[in-house]
Each structure stands twice: as C-alpha cells, then as structure tokens.
C-alpha cells in the first residue's frame, strides 16, 4: 500500500486499529473490570480497588486449584519433553521399519478435536479408577502436548551438526557422555520451548480437563468454568488477570533466557 492517497492510508490504519481493538477487547475489559469495587458485574467501574484481587487470594478453592494446575503443568511439561526428546532422537537419527507409522501417530492428535479425545480418554481411564485423579489428568494432557514437544525438539535436533558428536566419539567419549555433554546442551532451546508450550497448554486447557476432573483434581480453568456457570462477578476478572500475567511472565522469562524465537 505504498502509493496510497492520504485518505486511503488513514482509512486502512483505522481499520487495522479497530480490528486490533476487537481482538484485544476481552482482555482489556477484563483488566478494567478486575479493579471494580462492586460485588456484581457492571460497567464502567464506579470506583477502583484491589478488592477483587484480595477476594481471589482468600478463595480457598481457587488457590488450591491454582497449585494443582501448576503441579500438573510442570509434571506434564517434564514428562512430555522427556518422551518427546527420546521420540525425536529416534526419528531424526535412526532408520527403522514402521517409522512412517510412528510419525503418523505423533501428528494424528492434531487432526482430532479435543472434545472427541476427551470422551475417549474418559472412557479409557474411568474403568481403571483414574477419573478425577492426578495421573488421569496428566495422562490426558500428555496426548495433546507430546506432538508439540516432538515438533520443537525435532527442529532443534535437525539443526545439530552431527560431526560435533562424531568428533567427540572419535576422541574417546562414550555415547552416553556425548549425549549428556554435547547433544543435550545443543538442543536445550528446543527442550525449553517444548516444556513451556506443554506447560502452557496444560495450564490453560479446559475442554479435556472438564471431562476428566471434577473435585479432587480440579484445575484452575475447570474451577473458573464451574464458577462462571452461576456467577460472573469481578473476582473472576482479577483471577483472569493473574492467569494472563503468569502466561506472559513465563513467555517473557523464556524469551530472556533462551530466546523463544530461536527456540521455536
């Protein structure tokens, strides 16, 4: 749009601004509402306070669900990256029969809607008593995160110059040592990016979680969902802002640490 007349340029920029406003509207509005003093949902706020934030921290249900979500997310991140690392190694470094099938199995979860997967996982883990349990929800989240960790790690692994590894081998390093001292450090950005993606997916996921957990292992998104079925007061806005800040915090921290763009 370089040769645009002034009017055209202004109109175009206005359009883009409006679209951005639409896209960011819910987040901005939630942010404003979170400082409202009143107990019920209304707009605009009459006066501002941190009252809703205080309420969130006094809400035992939300706080315990937060710690559960955090723990589940970390476990999912670690397990998903470990399994993903091993799978990526086998796919990038080895030739074997059935490789296409393995590749397909890793990519296929992208082709199945979460709600369909949710019903299936529920049916599988219900008879073994894992509904509403930590192992149950971790398992449920592994299926949807492993494809992502395999993807990020595979990309890092393919960028590794295998001659470096060969050189270490030639100079007498054991294969295990080469793995720990050379391969692993070189793919670290991919590992961290994969772990962050897996953590965020698990931490924010609501659809599958709602089928798997109810009380004992409820996660923060499921608690918010059930709360919203009956009430929409500003407490949820404050909680939402906290969640958004956590997500941004994680991404920014990783960006600072390894450079997310390089990692993905």
């Amino acid at each position, binding site marked *: 749009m370089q040769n645009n007349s002034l009017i055209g340029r202004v109109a175009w920029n206005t359009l883009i601004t409006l679209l*951005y406003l639409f*896209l960011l509207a819910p987040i901005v509005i939630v942010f404003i509402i979170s400082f409202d003093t009143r107990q019920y949902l209304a707009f605009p706020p009459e006066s501002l306070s941190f009252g809703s934030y205080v309420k969130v921290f006094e809400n035992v249900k939300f706080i315990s669900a937060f710690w559960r979500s955090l723990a589940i997310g970390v476990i999912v991140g670690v397990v998903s990256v*470990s399994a993903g690392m091993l799978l990526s190694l086998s796919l990038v470094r080895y030739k074997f029969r059935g490789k296409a099938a393995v590749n397909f199995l*890793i990519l296929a979860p992208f*082709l199945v809607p979460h*709600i369909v997967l949710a*019903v299936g996982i529920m*049916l599988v883990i219900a008879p073994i008593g894992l509904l509403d349990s930590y192992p149950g929800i971790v398992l449920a989240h592994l299926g949807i995160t492993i494809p992502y960790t395999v993807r990020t790690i595979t990309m890092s692994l393919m960028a590794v110059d295998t001659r470096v590894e060969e050189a270490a081998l030639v100079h007498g390093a054991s294969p295990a040592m080469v793995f720990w001292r050379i391969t692993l450090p070189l793919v670290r950005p991919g590992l961290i990016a994969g772990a962050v993606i897996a953590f965020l997916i698990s931490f924010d996921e609501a659809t599958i979680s709602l089928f798997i957990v109810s009380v004992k292992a409820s996660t923060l998104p499921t608690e918010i969902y059930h709360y919203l079925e009956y009430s929409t007061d500003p407490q949820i806005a404050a909680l939402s802002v906290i969640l958004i800040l956590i997500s941004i915090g994680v991404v920014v921290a990783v960006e600072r640490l390894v450079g997310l763009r390089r990692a993905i």
Partner: protein
Amino acid sequence: MSAAVTAPASGAPAASRGILLILLLPGLVALIITFLLPLLWLLRASFASSAVGALSGGDWTLEAYTTVLFDPFYWRVAWNTLVVGFNVAIFAVILSYPIALFLVRTQSRFRGVLTALAVAPLLTSSVVRTYGWMVILGDRGVINSTLQSLSLTDGVIRLTNNSFGATVALIEILMPYAILAMLSGFGRLNVQLEEAAAMLGASRLKVFTRIVLPLSLPGVLTAALLVFVLAISAFVTPRLMGGGRVFVLGTEVFNEATVTLNWPLAAALSVMLLVLFSSIILLYQRALRALEV
C-alpha cells in the same frame, strides 16, 4: 494441521534394536494410552447399549446411532453446529485478513510487537476470554450499560445466552489461529508484482482482485478450514456464552458424557463429529491441491 515431522533419511545408521526400543517406548506408550486407545474405545462404546457394556466387552448395537439419526433434536444440533461453524469461519477470516495483510507488508519497526499482540490472546485460556465476552455482551455488560447511559435503549438487548453471543466470542477467540495460518500462507505475496501491475496501469482494485487475492487464497482457505473445524468442535465458549440455550455438538457431547451419563450416545456423537472433522480436512486437501496446480 502442521508440517510433518520429517527426518533426513540419508546417513541415519540402522539402529540396534535395544536402543531404538528404549527411545521409542515411553513416547509411544503415552501416545497409545492417551490417543490411540481412546479413539478405539470411543468407537467401541458408540456401538454399546450401556456404559457398562462399552467397557466390559458387552454387546454390539446400533442403538446410539439410531437415536441420533431418528431424533429431530440431533438434526437441529447438527444444523446449529454447522451454522455457527460457517458464520465463525467467514467472519474470523474476513476480520483477520486485513490484519495478516498488514503484518506481512508493514515496514514498521513495531512489526514484531504487533505480530505478538495479534497472537498473544492464544496465551490466555479460552475460559478467560469467554469471560471477557460475557462482560462485554452481558445484560449488565459494557455494551448494554453504554447504550443505556446514552439513553439509546430502555430495556436490555440480549446479546448473550444465545447463539449470537457464542458466535461473536468464537470469532474473536479463533482469530489468532486464522492470522497465524494466513501469515504462514502468504509467502507468495510479492509487492514487486503489485507495483509492476500498477505501473502497467492496473487500478488498485484490479491489483487486489487479480494479484493479491489469488496469491493469498491458499492461506485464506487454510485459515477458514482451521477456524471452522475448531468452531464446530468447541464446547466451553458455546456453553458459557449460550447459557445452556445454545445446542451444538460440543455442548451435547459434554452433556451426554457428564450429566446424563449416556456414554454410548456421547461416543456416537463424538464419532460423528470426528467423521465430519476428517472429511472436511480431506476435502480441503483436495481443494488446496487443485488450487496449486
């Protein structure tokens, strides 16, 4: 919906079976338990007469499918789902297209920030963003309060607890996916081509319809498909924005699975959703191939 994991075949040594097994086992077991087995179980359960039958071998019956096929309610649910899916896909693509086009060609030094801002909503839970739309569209929400304080309306305009609210929220929630799909699909756009056409006397409208639009069509199609399949399988947003009055496949699957506990029916509805989902993706791949030839 992503690039295939490809590995360089050349130079890869034939593995010793032991090491390969150790590498493959944890991930494969996890994927089999959390993906393959659930799909098989789902298929099996959809042919069972009761939840117990589904899990312990039991009998085989078409009961769940005949219930769905002969109950007009489920036909209405399927129709609602498709209508919501089409509306969401069309509007999300129309609203995302200018943003993607802007991001592809902007010379601004804030380009990185603007791109991040456009996809940042993906970092927030869809529950949170749905709540944002409840605040905006609710009976005492932003729009209704504003209209009333300006004395434009007396009563409340119902924007939530209906499919309008669910559609609007889904459009916004799925827009970042559309923008991402378009950004990666707009690789063939080329400013020099447009300049050449303009220099040869093409009007701006003509440059757009003859050059920009055709070259961006694959990206647009990918975005539309992605949004459509995500919209027809959505459940949290239609349930919360619909307040229980919007009936789509997602909400019904959840209802049958967790409220009425009719697991064969939930399974049958899921299988139908999956079939719809996969056939659309297959059709899309055909279309894309035809487009590229």
